[in-house]
């Protein structure tokens, strides 16, 4: 179903707040990955706050939808979404990366709502595939979503799973690539050219949908289309901007894993229309 104008506005407002909260948490501990957390914001927010059938009061419901954040370094944006869904206490963002916290630097099973640990890149698609296979054996209607980075496409295991998921005709599996074109050391073009990403996935047997990963309506339509494909898995290549929403971070590899100074944070919050 297309998103209503009002709902789009509500979700965009959540994204604005989430961006601020994530940057504050990373600034607070002076450690973390702002760039990729900002680029994946709309993807995660649409899935968690609108699409997925999940309920914090029934976290082990066998028919819940699953999400694997394969690009685990974007964990702060995942945690902020889990807070909004009631899986975590509202004040837990401030514990990010601190001793004794459920909010580890990368997702772990200690965190309510996290379905699979992630951190070493390249493993999430395979794990999501396993979930999809298991859910199909269970005759469950649940869907599995996995979010990968574009730098992560360098990993060989991604292409092992790219080969196997179509073999198993996993139409309950939707993969999304946060295609922000920047990785830690530079642009994907400089570090390891991805060439024609769409053609690569298509040749492995996937249905491929391309869209703007910051446009909630486009993303939502892509997810609708993916849900209708019944002969195999779909990958949504969502074009995004690393550091989206903060002008001095946008498209800059330097902001992959750099914490914000006090000045940076003040400027970023001002741009995002927040209060210090």
């Amino acid at each position: 179903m297309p998103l209503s104008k009002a709902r789009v506005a509500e979700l965009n407002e959540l994204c604005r707040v989430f961006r601020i909260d994530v940057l504050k948490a990373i600034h607070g501990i002076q450690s973390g990955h702002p760039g990729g957390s900002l680029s994946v914001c709309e993807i995660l927010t649409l899935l968690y706050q609108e699409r997925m059938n999940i309920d914090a009061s029934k976290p082990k419901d066998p028919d819940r939808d699953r999400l694997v954040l394969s690009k685990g370094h974007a964990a702060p944006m995942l945690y902020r979404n889990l807070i909004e869904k009631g899986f975590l206490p509202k004040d837990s963002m401030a514990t990010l990366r601190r001793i004794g916290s459920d909010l580890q630097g990368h997702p772990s099973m200690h965190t309510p709502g996290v379905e699979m640990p992630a951190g070493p890149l390249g493993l999430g698609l395979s794990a999501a595939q396993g979930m999809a296979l298991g859910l199909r054996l269970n005759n469950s209607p649940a869907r599995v979503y996995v979010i990968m980075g574009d730098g992560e496409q360098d990993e060989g295991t991604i292409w092992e799973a790219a080969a196997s998921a179509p073999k198993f005709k996993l139409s309950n599996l939707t993969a999304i690539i946060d295609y922000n074109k920047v990785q830690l050391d530079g642009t994907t073009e400089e570090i390891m050219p991805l060439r024609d990403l769409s053609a690569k996935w298509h040749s492995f047997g996937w249905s491929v949908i391309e869209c703007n990963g910051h446009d909630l309506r486009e993303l939502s339509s892509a997810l609708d289309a993916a849900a209708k494909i019944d002969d195999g898995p779909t990958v949504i290549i969502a074009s995004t901007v690393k550091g989206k929403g903060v002008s001095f971070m946008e498209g800059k590899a330097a902001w992959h894993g750099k914490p914000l100074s006090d000045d940076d944070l003040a400027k970023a919050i001002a741009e995002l229309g927040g209060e210090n």
Partner: protein
Amino acid sequence: MAKAIREVYGSVLAELGEKNKDIVVLDADLSGSTKSGVFGKAHPDRFFNMGIAESNMVATAAGLSTTGKIPFVNTFTVFLTTLGLISTRAQVCYGNLNVKLGGAYCGMSDAFDGSTHHATEDIAVMRSLPNMVVVVPSDERSTRWATEFAVEHKGPVYLRLSRDVYPDLYAEDTKFELGKGAVVREGADVTVIACGLLVHKAMEAAEILKEKGVSVRVVDMYSIKPIDKELILRCAAETGAIVTAEEHNIYGGLGGAVSEVLAWGAAGVPTEFVGIQDTFTESGPYSQLLAKYGVDANGVIAGIEKVLARKK
């Protein structure tokens, strides 16, 4: 009777799959060798051939386990514990997921294929992972138990399995238990703590040394992690000398695990380590390889003689 460990594992797994519909099995294009294909033939809807892609296979099993399935992952030991290691650590063990790893050709049991196909570091690797349980069966009955145990146990399990035929060691009604070892031969002068094939080699050595008046106790330490601390300390106290014996590098495996216990509770008890001496191996007939690399009855005898010379 003597049976190939892989044959026993494959048929027990298929049999368990009849009763327990949650069991699913994955292989990386070696199901004819690992014998996971026996399960595949019996339960094709619950068997997934992942192609030659070990990392993908283990990570897929991690996902399967979160849907209530009990995945058994199979390939040659050396590939599983190297190519499959990143998911084993970061997903299976870190997430304490209910995944079972069957390492099919342990030690030098894939003899002719050479060192690339020999697994001589796997115990060290797997026992260093938090949440992992490490079990090494030594005959048909202990293999049956180990496979049944892996189904029942909640959490990661590593089964070190052999391509080779092992003689029977245990009576039909033997009770096995995680965290326990078994005294399979009583003796008073020295204890050989062994696992897998080397339990049989230690039994041969004990028989030979009996004629020379040496009384050798043999322990099958089939549960390497957790390990039977109490039994190790009791053997150290009662026999005053320990020899560990394994088809594995002398570093980090059973010898390492036993040493950790001895250093803690029986420091100073003379100990010798029978195993592969921190070297890569080679192709050849299995029995000749075992002899050349000192992991046969003669190797165990040499270890016993060394340790007895040091025993006061």
